[in-house]
């Protein structure tokens, strides 16, 4: 279990598995004086999709790569399509671009919502405390914090459902939850917890409708099928009544984002101010996305790089400065490679290996570890003085009594996620209007025919839920010669690189409080704040006895 560079001063802790994430990841921390002194993040699964793609027709790649993730489904398909269209110098028609905008923006909103309530939520929400709430009082809080009225009937129902659920004696998904039996780090009042629990359930209902909204254009959800190289195929969706159905779901979602998600994240920022003081990383980058469907310019999300938490400056991004390290990953060799020339040759040693300890590669920009995701995107927009981001974040800072630099924290990450959701749902209205206008005018131009070339290379980028996603393809003999996916969670949750520089998540854990190793809630809050797309685990070594003590966490 010991890793290289480990000192022998502290205790080791392993959480295994970390739930409420996608996939299989392992985190090990060394503790000193109730704080994390050192951390190792290890992904625990190898699937080999890049290896499988070799020799196949490029146009099939989107269907394969989409299966990299069923949570940010659609995004890998779209990014592969963009890589191939880049290689073929092909531009899909404007209406196809609009449909892709609608699918991608809905996906990001869906994904942020599910992460906020259903994956991250139970780090903050004490569902047991909600049983003692007064729904009438809770209703008043809702009315004061949002545009909803104070009608408590739904809150009565939620409380009753929770009571019956707990009284049945089968706790199911809440078995061994860290708030059971009372836990001082869960600070919301019973009424606030009841509101959050009600939104947890309401959020489940909203997300299924967002899935439906995606399916209206994508054919199904998860895993779109209508997005193809050259455009989209969904002629049937180009009926005004389909666009109208989509708009209805959008309106319902907007009401929820405005009146539940935004007030809830403000409440959390006020209730958990210490979460604004840990979980910090240094460097950030983002790709651009949501370009104008006609001109391909003016992206709604702009690209850039931000160094050393300095909100006063930013620089432009150079794709040529991205490379991938495997020195500390379970792959052959230790050569640093550009993604176009990336190799994926698995070579498992063991977790106890002094060098290699993860299935994830370690992407670096100018040799540095970077964070990507909603925090990176909003911090960059703030640094660029983008009006919308500035207005929303400044209003939030004021309401939550927080400083701009506190964005660089566990809670800041979550705040940015919700603020971005709100921005995107507002921006979507224009794309829906434009789609409707084109559809009503009889535009059916959604596919541009193409011919596969013998030899070419291309890169596709995408602003996805968890950050900057890029796909790199080399075509030779009309088939895939090489395909590399550099994904956000590899940036955020990868291992060290050959120069021993920690990844963003490893860095964010340093200094994270852990007063109760039996219930490492703060570590989970920090790891979850990245919205990981992989599963993790953390164990405990008592160095005084030199052995590993399996920690019984109740």
């Amino acid at each position, binding site marked *: 279990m010991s890793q290289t560079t480990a000192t022998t001063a502290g205790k080791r802790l392993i959480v295994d598995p970390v739930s409420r994430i*996608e996939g299989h990841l392992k985190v090990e921390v060394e503790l000193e004086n109730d704080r994390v002194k050192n951390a190792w993040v290890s992904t625990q699964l*190898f699937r080999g999709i890049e290896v499988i793609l070799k020799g196949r027709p490029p146009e*099939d790649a989107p269907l394969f790569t989409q299966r990299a*993730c069923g949570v940010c489904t659609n995004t890998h398909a779209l990014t592969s399509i963009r890589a191939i269209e880049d290689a073929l110098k092909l531009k899909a028609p404007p209406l196809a671009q609009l449909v892709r905008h609608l699918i991608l923006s809905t996906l990001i909103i869906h994904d942020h919502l599910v992460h906020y309530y259903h*994956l991250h939520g139970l780090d903050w929400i004490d569902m047991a405390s909600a049983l003692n709430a007064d729904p009438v009082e809770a209703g008043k809080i809702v009315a004061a914090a949002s545009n909803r009225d104070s009608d408590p009937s739904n809150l009565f129902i939620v409380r009753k459902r929770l009571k019956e659920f707990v009284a049945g004696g089968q706790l199911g998904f809440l*078995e061994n939850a860290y708030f059971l039996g009372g836990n001082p780090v869960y600070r919301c009042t019973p009424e606030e917890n009841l509101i959050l629990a009600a939104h947890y359930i309401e959020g*489940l209902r909203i997300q299924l409708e967002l899935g439906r909204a995606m399916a209206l254009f994508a054919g199904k959800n998860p895993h779109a099928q*209508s997005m193809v190289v050259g455009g989209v195929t969904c*002629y049937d969706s180009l009926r005004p009544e389909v666009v109208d159905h989509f708009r209805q779901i959008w309106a319902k979602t907007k009401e929820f984002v405005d009146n539940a998600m935004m007030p809830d994240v403000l409440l959390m920022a006020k209730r958990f101010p210490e979460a604004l003081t840990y979980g910090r990383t240094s460097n950030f980058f983002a790709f651009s996305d949501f370009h104008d469907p006609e001109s391909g310019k003016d992206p709604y999300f702009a690209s850039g790089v931000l160094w050393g938490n300095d909100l006063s400056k930013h620089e432009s991004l150079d794709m040529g400065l991205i490379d991938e390290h495997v020195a500390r990953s379970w792959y052959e060799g230790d050569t640093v490679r550009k993604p176009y020339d990336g190799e994926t040759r698995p070579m498992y040693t063991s977790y106890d290996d002094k060098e290699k300890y993860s299935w994830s590669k370690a992407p670096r920009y100018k040799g540095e570890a970077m964070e990507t995701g909603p925090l990176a995107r909003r911090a960059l927009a703030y640094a660029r003085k983008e009006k919308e981001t500035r207005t929303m974040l400044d209003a939030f800072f004021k309401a939550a009594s927080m400083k701009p630099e506190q964005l660089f924290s566990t809670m800041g990450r979550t705040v940015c996620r919700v603020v971005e959701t709100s921005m995107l749902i507002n921006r979507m209205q224009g794309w829906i209007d434009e789609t409707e206008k084109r559809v009503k005018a009889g535009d059916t131009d959604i596919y541009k025919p193409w011919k596969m070339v013998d030899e070419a290379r291309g890169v596709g980028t995408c602003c996805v839920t968890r950050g900057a996603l890029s796909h790199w393809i080399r075509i030779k003999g009309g088939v895939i010669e090489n395909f590399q996916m550099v994904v956000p969670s590899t940036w955020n949750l990868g291992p060290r690189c050959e120069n021993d520089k920690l990844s963003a998540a490893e860095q964010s854990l340093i200094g994270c409080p852990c007063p109760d190793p039996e219930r490492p809630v703060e570590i989970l809050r920090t790891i979850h704040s990245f919205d990981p797309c992989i599963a993790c685990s953390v164990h405990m070594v008592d160095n005084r006895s030199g052995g590993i003590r399996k920690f*019984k966490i109740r």
Partner: protein
Amino acid sequence: MPNGKRFDALKMLAGGPKPSRREFMKFCGAMAVFMGMGPAFAPAVAEALMSKKRPSVVYLHCAECTGCTEGLLRAYEPFFDEIIMSTISLDYCETVMAASGHAAHAALEKAIANPEGYVCVIEGGIPTFHGGEYGKVGGETMFQLCARVAAKAKATIAMGSCACFGGVQAAAPNPSGAKGVNQALAAVGVSAINISGCPPNPMNFVGTVVHLLTKGMPKLDHWNRPVMFYGDTVHAHCPRQEHFNRGEFAPSFDSPEAKKGWCLYQLGCKGPYTYNNCPTALFNQVNWPVKAGAPCIGCSEPNFWDDYSPFFHPIEDRPKG
């Protein structure tokens, strides 16, 4: 399926007034019909959905993308929150459970020691190369974990094409030796019900669970899939079938024929070779790939990643090799 306001149904779930009971029975009736049982079966469905002692379910994740779980989150009537709060007891599921680490592990051990037994659901292929070292949960290989949990389960359900047949990671050259549950765990006597699809329609899963709770084991096909959902080809109920019969095929995605909704066979549709209920059950209540102009890729069939690709060419045009 009714698409009314669920507020009343929520009231009903909370033991509210009578009229909404009627709405609930309406959707139990719809579920019964969906399962091919006829509306008279509705009371049995209602009982299964609202039982006092909820049957325990242990849900394991292996080599997967979590798309099947995401699909299940989109379950509609019953909704996911109703399923986990009123129908089953989801005693282990890494995606949604509150506990992590050892607390999660303890929940698993408690669930599989339950004297009343449990149903095991597995999502994802099982990596088998080098003793299964390509995939681990809590230091234990997925191979070993699944063998341990499924071997003792009352029933095992393989959720999605990865768990059924190995899935995308099992496509050539299958670098991690991924296998489906029945292939990997036959030696420990596991025979799982296969709910295939990438991802499967969540209603096929919910319907199978309701069947297990009411009438026991459903009738299965050659690939262990419930015949009630996988009995016919996609082609058999495809609204575009009349075009196929008349030889009216779309030659390209931008052709007038594609815009008119002609048959996608020449663009690679594998509907005639694929057993599933997509055209009738629909995804997300509104759509399915062919309706959205996309050829069926055959995602509910074994080895479709290799046997049914290239995906945009008719199956007989595949390179012989």
